């Protein structure tokens, strides 16, 4: 991929990685739009970051834990409203067979 531009092939590859199904016209449209966005974003390359660390969190928290105990507070007591599939009286989630 050339820096600052996304070809239709690039976009198709990204769609596959992101599990998105795109039509040919979408691929065409997005490739143009994303290329111009990337082109703008490329201005970041001119910033000197050689002496800088990344920021992943803005308030400097560290060492946050939860205690090892079983709790019902968040537990889902019912799965109603979710896409549950009942098989032999048991509750599963189902997809088309994969293996």
């Amino acid at each position, binding site marked *: 991929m050339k820096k600052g531009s996304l070809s239709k092939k690039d976009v198709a590859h990204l769609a596959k990685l992101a599990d998105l199904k795109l039509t040919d016209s979408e691929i065409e449209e997005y490739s143009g739009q994303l290329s111009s966005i990337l082109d703008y974003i490329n201005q970041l390359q001119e910033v000197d970051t050689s002496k800088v660390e990344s920021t992943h969190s803005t308030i400097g928290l560290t060492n946050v834990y939860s205690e090892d105990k*079983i709790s019902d507070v968040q537990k889902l007591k019912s799965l109603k409203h979710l896409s549950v599939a009942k098989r032999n009286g048991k509750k599963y989630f*189902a*997809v088309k067979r994969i293996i």
Partner: protein
Amino acid sequence: MNRCMESMKDHGLSNQYNPVIGLEIHAELSTRSKMFCQCLADYFGQPPNTHVCPVCLGLPGALPVPNRKAVEWTILLGKALNCKINKITKFDRKHYFYPDLPKGYQISQYDEPIATGGIFQLGKKTFRIRRVHLEEDTGKLIHKGDETLVDFNRSGVPLVEIVTEPDFTNSTDVKAFLEELQTLIRYLEVSDCDMEKGSMRLEPNVSLRKLKSTKMPAYKVEVKNINSFRFAQKAVEYEIKRQTALLQKGETPTQETRGFNETKGITFSQRSKEEEQDYRYFPEPDIPPFVFETKFLEKVEVPELPHEKVERYVSTWKLRREEALLLTRDKKVAQYFERVISKLNQKKPDMVKPVEQTIAKLIVNKKIPIDIAESEFIERALEKRKKHEVDEKILAGVLGKIVEENKKAVEDYRGGKEGAVMFLVGQAMRELKGKADAVVIREKLMKLVRRDQ
């Protein structure tokens, strides 16, 4: 060089290639709750999807909060494997789509794992541990008819991943390592580490390189779906054969993931690693990083490990190595043994030595069960002793006679053949019609023989 010789001996290879084998082991931690939520972690046998919450189901808006015990136990395991514990560590997101992965990414560790650079001693050999890290488990898939069913009870259970360097050169070492590692992990009481229950999983990766080459091979084959240590050994052996055959034809084995078929004892192609997965790792923004203080790390104490116990039993109590090994495979048995010894030494310090060897034999040979109280065990042991008490004068007489009549065996023993004394013990036991404690006999015979030198 020793390893090369061994592997050639083991496989009678056409002396062209050396196996280069690494292992990836996963162990489910036996915490009470899951890695990032407080749902029950002990999912085995639970009805499907009965221990789930927004977090482990990956519902919109849910957030992970890391289980402190899981982090501490991973540090413990890292320490037990002689790793460097990284003072700064964090979680990362590993992205791929699969029905058992509810968020579309797994929270794992990428470039800053909890532990790196460890050593595992196996007898006289050492195997390097590349890293130990912490992550979450996926849901379970059941393939039935034209559907695949998903149970998320297991989703989010803490999983420790241990990756070795590719230091293994034969399947025997692989099996021995796995057994010892399993024992070690069980000693730490951080995981059941049970292959049958799925709380231990393993994936060997196998390649071959030309003899005398020190370069890493150009390819690597991962083998999945191995359900026991024995099958791991078989799978490795099969791969070595398969890859050797290809290389001899001038072909390079494909870099890929292969499955193992237990019934046929073969591996088969599953997924080509050529199109390598792009996991798009990036630091998990929902979980702040960890900065471990030295004091905190120092407080994580590694208990006496199985191989350390074996050494101690052999050197301090003069147990035979095989006995020491048997006693230490299950920590509970070893602890019971130690408690019995301790109680015995308190109660009857005037008991005929060697106490430890006698008790060891009783346990190893299952002469007295160990599901009884230690005090009861001791009583039964003493009773057995009484039955075997022979008049000292008679005993001395018999032993003297045995030494007289078996000069060759005595010579052999004095010449360094340790096993010769057992022959003498056997003779004495026959004379005494089994009415003696073999351990005591042996001790006395050894003293006798040495004194006469």
